[in-house]
C-alpha cells in the first residue's frame, strides 16, 4: 500500500496575490480598491446572498431522504399508505428532521462557499445546493422549516409529487445528484448526470468542519469500467497484462469525472489567492490498483485530463475501510456495494455509483481491481 501525493507541496514565497491587480478567476478585472469598497458595503449587512445562476455554479442536488433522516416517515408510508403518510408529515410540520448522510457534506459545501464569497464577492462560481425530491408538496412546509432550523442555504427546490425530476436536474445544469433511491440515480446517470445512491451508516465518524473532503474510487467512477471488464472476464493476471500494455493509452472517462473537474476549478480559485496549503477542498483517489503497476495508467490519465487530485491512495487490493477511516471524507464514491458497505461499517459516508460491469454481477468478497 503506497500513499502518494500527486501534487508536491508548493511554497508560495514572495507572491503577494492580494495586492496585485490580477484578472481574477471569476473573469472580472477588479482593482483591489474596488473589492475593498465592496466588502465595506457588505460589512454588517445581514441580507441573504443571492443564489447564483445555475450555469455559473456547481449545482449539487440532494433528495430529502439523504439530506435528512426520514426513516420513521418512510415506515408510515410503507405500512399505511400515502394519505396517512402526508397527514403524519403535516401533523409533525414543526418538528425538524434530523440530519441525514448528506448533511455533513452539504455543511462542508457551505463552508467552502463562505470562504469563496469572502475572496470573490462578485463571483457566482459557488456551490448551489438544491433540494430535489419526489415528495409531495404537503411535506413542503416541514422541509422548509427543517432547512430554516439547521440554517442551511437552500433556496431552490423541486417537490415533484411523484413525477421524475430529470428535466429540472438538466435545466439546473446539475453537477451531482444524490438520492436514496438507486432507480432514480440510474435514471440520472443514463441522462449523463453524475449521481450516486447514499446510505445512512450506523455510526458516523466525525468529519472536518473546515475542509471539504471528497474521495473517489477510480474504475467505473472517475474512469470507465473498461479495465474492470477485463478483470471480471479474464482475471487478475490478464488485468495487469492489459494495463501494462495500455499504460500510455488514456482510460475513458467515468460518470464522476465531471464532478472532480468542477471541484478542481474551485480549488484553483483558492490557489490563485495563495491558499494551496489550507485549501478548504481536498480530493482523494482511493483505488484497489497498485502504485507500481496498474496505478500508473490511472495517474497518466488524470494528468492528461488536466485534473489534479490531492492524494492518490493505491491499496493494491487491500480493504478500503481503514484507509477511508483515516481520511475522513465527507463522501466517498464507489461503484461496488461491497466497498460502500465496507466503508459504512467504519463510519464513512459512502455513495454507490450504479455504473458499469460491477452492477451486472453479484458482489464477490474477494480482491478485485
Amino acid at each position, binding site marked *: 500500500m503506497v500513499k502518494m501525493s500527486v501534487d508536491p507541496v508548493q511554497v508560495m514565497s514572495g507572491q503577494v496575490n492580494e495586492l496585485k491587480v490580477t484578472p481574477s478567476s471569476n473573469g472580472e478585472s477588479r482593482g483591489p480598491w474596488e473589492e475593498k469598497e465592496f466588502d465595506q458595503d457588505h460589512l454588517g449587512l445581514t441580507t441573504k446572498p443571492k*443564489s447564483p445562476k445555475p450555469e455559473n455554479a456547481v449545482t449539487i442536488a440532494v433528495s430529502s431522504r439523504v439530506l435528512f433522516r426520514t426513516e420513521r416517515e418512510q415506515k408510515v408510508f410503507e405500512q399505511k399508505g*400515502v394519505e396517512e403518510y402526508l397527514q403524519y408529515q403535516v401533523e409533525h410540520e414543526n418538528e425538524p428532521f434530523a440530519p441525514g448522510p448528506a448533511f455533513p457534506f452539504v455543511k462542508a459545501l457551505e463552508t467552502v462557499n463562505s470562504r469563496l464569497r469572502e475572496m470573490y464577492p462578485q463571483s457566482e462560481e459557488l456551490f448551489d445546493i438544491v433540494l430535489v425530491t419526489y415528495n409531495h*408538496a404537503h411535506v*413542503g412546509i416541514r422541509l422548509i422549516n427543517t432547512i430554516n432550523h439547521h440554517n442551511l442555504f437552500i433556496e431552490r427546490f*423541486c417537490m415533484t*409529487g411523484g413525477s421524475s425530476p430529470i428535466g*429540472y436536474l438538466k435545466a439546473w445544469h446539475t453537477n451531482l445528484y444524490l438520492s436514496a433511491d438507486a432507480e432514480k440515480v440510474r435514471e440520472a446517470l443514463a441522462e449523463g448526470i453524475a449521481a450516486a445512491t447514499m446510505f445512512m451508516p450506523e455510526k458516523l465518524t466525525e468529519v472536518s468542519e473546515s475542509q471539504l473532503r471528497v474521495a473517489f474510487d477510480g474504475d467505473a467512477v472517475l474512469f470507465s469500467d473498461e479495465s474492470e471488464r477485463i478483470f471480471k472476464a479474464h482475471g487478475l493476471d490478464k488485468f495487469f497484462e492489459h494495463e501494462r500494455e495500455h499504460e500510455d493509452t488514456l482510460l475513458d472517462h467515468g460518470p464522476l469525472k465531471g464532478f472532480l473537474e468542477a471541484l478542481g476549478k474551485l480549488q484553483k480559485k483558492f490557489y490563485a489567492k495563495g491558499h494551496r496549503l489550507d485549501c478548504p477542498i481536498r480530493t482523494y483517489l482511493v483505488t484497489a490498483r497498485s502504485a507500481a503497476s496498474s496505478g500508473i495508467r490511472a495517474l497518466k490519465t488524470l494528468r492528461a485530463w488536466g485534473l489534479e487530485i490531492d492524494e492518490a491512495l493505491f491499496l493494491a487490493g487491500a480493504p478500503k475501510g481503514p484507509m477511508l477511516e483515516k481520511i475522513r471524507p465527507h463522501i466517498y464514491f464507489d461503484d461496488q456495494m461491497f466497498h460502500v458497505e465496507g466503508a459504512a461499517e467504519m463510519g464513512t459516508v459512502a455513495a454507490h455509483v450504479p455504473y458499469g460491469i460491477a452492477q451486472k454481477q453479484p458482489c464477490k468478497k474477494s480482491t478485485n481491481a
Partner: protein
Amino acid sequence: MVSTVRNPEAKQKDAQRALVVALTCQELFHLGGAEVSSSEPYAPGVAFPLLQAMQVVNERLLELNPEETLLFDVVLLAADCQQHQDRIIATTRHYGLDVSRFCFCSRDEFTHLLLRERTHLFLCTDARQVATASHTGVAAALLQPAPSRPTQQLRVLFCTDPADRPGTSQQVCQVAGLLGAMRSRLGVACGALSIILLTVQGGRESCGRALLTLRSWGLGVDEAYCLAGAPGGPALSLLAPHILFPDGSALQA
C-alpha cells in the same frame, strides 16, 4: 343582444354548487377562415385539451360520488359569433363535449355576461382579457397552449411572483377554495388533477408563505417548485400547466 342556449346533450350542473368556468368559443374551436355555409365541425382549438382534462376530473368525481355537485360547469362564451351559432352547437355535440351552455353576445356585453353567468373562473390565452376580467371582479387565469407531451391530468399552476397588474385576491381565494375541495374529494392518489406552485424570483421563504396562504384558502398543493431567480421559461415548459394564475401578490400576504 344576449342569447343563452342550454346544451341538451350535456348533463346540467347545479350552478350554485359547481365551479363555473367560462371559455371563449374562439379558443375552443378554430373558427377563423371557415366558410359560414359549411356544416363540417370546426377543428379543435387551443382550449380543447383543457376541456378534455376538466371532463376527466368530472368523471372521476362522479365515480367517487354519483350525486356529486362540485363539478366543473363549463360555459362557452361567443362574442360576435351569432352567424356561427348552429355550427358551434353542432360541433360541441360532435365531439361530445361537456359544455353546459352557450352564451352568444356582442363584444361589449362580454364582461357583463361573465358576471351574469356567475363565472368563478374565466380562462383565456390573452393576458389583457384576463386582466380586464380580473378588474371587473371575476377571477381569471391564463390558458396555456397545449404542451408538447399531452397529458390527461388537469394541471393548475399558481405563480407566487407578483404580476405587473395585480388582480383581486378575493375571487382567486374563492376559486382556490373550490379547487381545493375538488382536490380533497379526489384524494391524493388520484392523478386527474394536480395543483402546482411556482416561485420564480423568490426563495424558500416566499414559497413557504405561498404554501401557507393557499392552505388557508382551502387549497392543498401537490407540486412545489422554487427557482430563486433561475430561468422561469424552461421550468414552465417542463411543468406544462393548462391553467396559470399569474399574479401571486396575494400569496405573499
